[in-house]
């Protein structure tokens, strides 16, 4: 049995903007998707990620800017000329066609020979575990099976580019986890370039080579999952990535001198520990998660969330001292777009002196 393989292609989006009736959906987005990689567009609803995907697909056209696929300018080309496949959130299966006809739809449009159709169908169906369902209508399938049919329709033609618009959001949590792995494995095996839209950061972090975090139609940060987590480029990214996300408080609220007035301090809950020295705080709320313990502490007017080991014994109202390593501190501009900045050394020293070293 021969392998299904397709070579991915580079996708470049440069300076693309799109507005509807004066409302900007995508604002000067530039983005490079290397051939054969998995890129996730991540952001809250209304951030422009789906519109960006649809502009790459050719279902919408950019007001300005350019889209190239494999070095070819396709900005104003219809979808069919872009040589790509797409999976929709609602699956978009044809309800009157059975599984086989749905998967073969594109091949039939392009009048691929019957024997090749049958061969590819068998391969694709086997890969997705749909061989026993080929003659069922979509309505007779479970949500997960419908999802697989949509994937089948996307991969059977071995297109160099595959786009997915929140494909897992209609599945239950358990199925979502297993499909995540499966889609990632499929992408690596077949080697196509993937652009995947989601608002679920767990999907983004686990699947992507490159995560693109968007907000208000703009890119906040693009980078590897590790870089997005470890070095968030803006306050928004810091507050969006991580479960629970990073604590963000005014830097001058902790320092006695009130220095660092225009800066926001960010510390991840999982970097905070409780010890004998450090920042005095009062436990206000506890959430026990088994392995972990989420402890909400009050430090003056500020609230800090700490993620401790579940073995810790703390009570509400208890006085604790919080600690974190100096390198666990992130600083962002409080105003404007909240860009990541290097804090003045004296501020870092002052804060480090306050919280000490974890013991």
């Amino acid at each position, binding site marked *: 049995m021969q392998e299904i393989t397709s070579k991915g292609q580079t996708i470049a989006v440069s300076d693309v903007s799109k507005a509807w009736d004066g409302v900007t959906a995508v604002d000067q987005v530039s983005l490079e998707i290397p051939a054969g990689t998995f890129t996730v567009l991540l952001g809250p609803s209304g951030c422009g990620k789906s519109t960006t995907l649809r502009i790459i697909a050719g*279902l919408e056209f950019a007001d300005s800017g350019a889209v190239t696929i494999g070095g070819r300018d396709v900005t104003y080309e219809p*979808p069919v000329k872009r040589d790509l496949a797409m999976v929709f959130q609602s699956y*978009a299966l*044809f*309800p009157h066609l059975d599984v086989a006809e749905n998967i073969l739809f594109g091949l039939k*449009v392009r009048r691929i020979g019957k024997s090749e159709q049958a061969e590819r169908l068998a391969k694709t169906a086997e890969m997705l575990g749909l061989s026993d369902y080929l003659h069922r209508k979509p309505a007779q399938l479970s949500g997960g099976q419908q999802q697989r049919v949509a994937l089948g329709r996307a991969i059977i033609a071995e297109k160099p580019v595959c786009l997915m618009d929140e494909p897992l959001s209609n599945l239950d949590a358990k199925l979502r986890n297993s499909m995540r792995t499966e889609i990632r494995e499929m992408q690596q095996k077949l080697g196509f370039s993937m652009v995947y839209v989601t608002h679920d950061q767990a999907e983004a972090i686990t699947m992507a080579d490159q995560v693109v975090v968007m907000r208000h139609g703009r890119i906040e940060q693009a980078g590897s999952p590790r870089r997005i987590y470890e070095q968030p480029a803006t306050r928004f990214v810091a507050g969006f990535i991580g479960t629970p996300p990073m604590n963000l408080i005014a830097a001058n609220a902790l320092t006695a001198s009130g220095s660092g007035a225009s800066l926001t301090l960010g510390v991840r809950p999982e970097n905070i520990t409780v010890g004998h020295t450090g920042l005095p705080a009062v436990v206000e709320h506890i959430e026990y998660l088994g392995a972990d313990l989420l402890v909400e502490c009050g430090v003056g007017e500020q609230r800090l969330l700490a993620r401790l080991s579940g073995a810790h014994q703390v009570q509400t109202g208890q006085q604790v001292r919080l600690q974190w390593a100096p390198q666990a501190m992130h600083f962002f501009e409080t105003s404007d777009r909240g860009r990541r900045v290097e804090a003045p050394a004296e501020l870092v020293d002052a804060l480090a002196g306050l919280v000490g070293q974890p013991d």
Partner: protein
Amino acid sequence: MMHRREWVYGWLFLSPALVFLFAFTHYPAVKTVISSFYSTPRGKREAKFIGLENYQTMLSDDVFWKVLGNNFWFAVGTIPISIGLALLMALWVNSHLRGRTLSRVAFFAPTVLPLIAVANIWMFFYTPGFGLIDQLRSGLFGLPAINLLGNPDSVLAAVIVVAIWKEAGFFMIFYLAALQSIPPVLREAADIEGASRGYYLRRVLLPLLMPTTLFVSVNAVINSFRLVDHIFVMTEGGPDNASSLLLYYIYETAFQYWQTGYAATLTVVMLVLLSILAIGQFFLFDRKVHYQ
């Protein structure tokens, strides 16, 4: 105690509809079947049972056969064209074109207007000499006047055109509703796969519209027997019964010649015909129809 009262309420709520249904549908239908086996009562002579005599009369009635033939051609002429037009118009006003609200209103207007009133406008179109059609013919092509409604060869076609004009807008509404229930994402999925408009229409839209087509075609068949309002205004079945349809002939027999027994017989034949056609259509189509 409580149960009895609920039972009474149930019947009270049902009764208005039931009374009308029985008084104006079920009772007349049954009475018609019975009447078709009786002679027509005249003056003091009461209707008496005559068995199948009315049916025998009918079989040897040339006008009946002529009218039945007319009705056949009327159905063949109106049904496919009005359904096809309805689909075209629905596809058109469902697209994102400018002024589509206006075209929707324009297409639906014939349905809202009473056919009796509209038939008078069509009379003007058809009037020989100074009607719209003749003015166009002589003005643009210098052709002589024609009398479309006065000629047995053209009169049926002329009333068919009016019926199509009336029906297409009505059926369009059903197609439009069905089209709007089809998710636009299917079109996008087909676009991604490179399907042309024609391919999408043939392989996706038309199959998904099949339930509507079935519904509309059953209605169209029934209407082709029912829609005779314009015959009253435009031709009164003439000339030489060339534009008379079954229902119009029943009207004439019953309320102009007052042969109520024979009219009942004709009515029974029409009911049987319609039932067979409607049931047949459901069985014929149903296997090919995908219901969502």
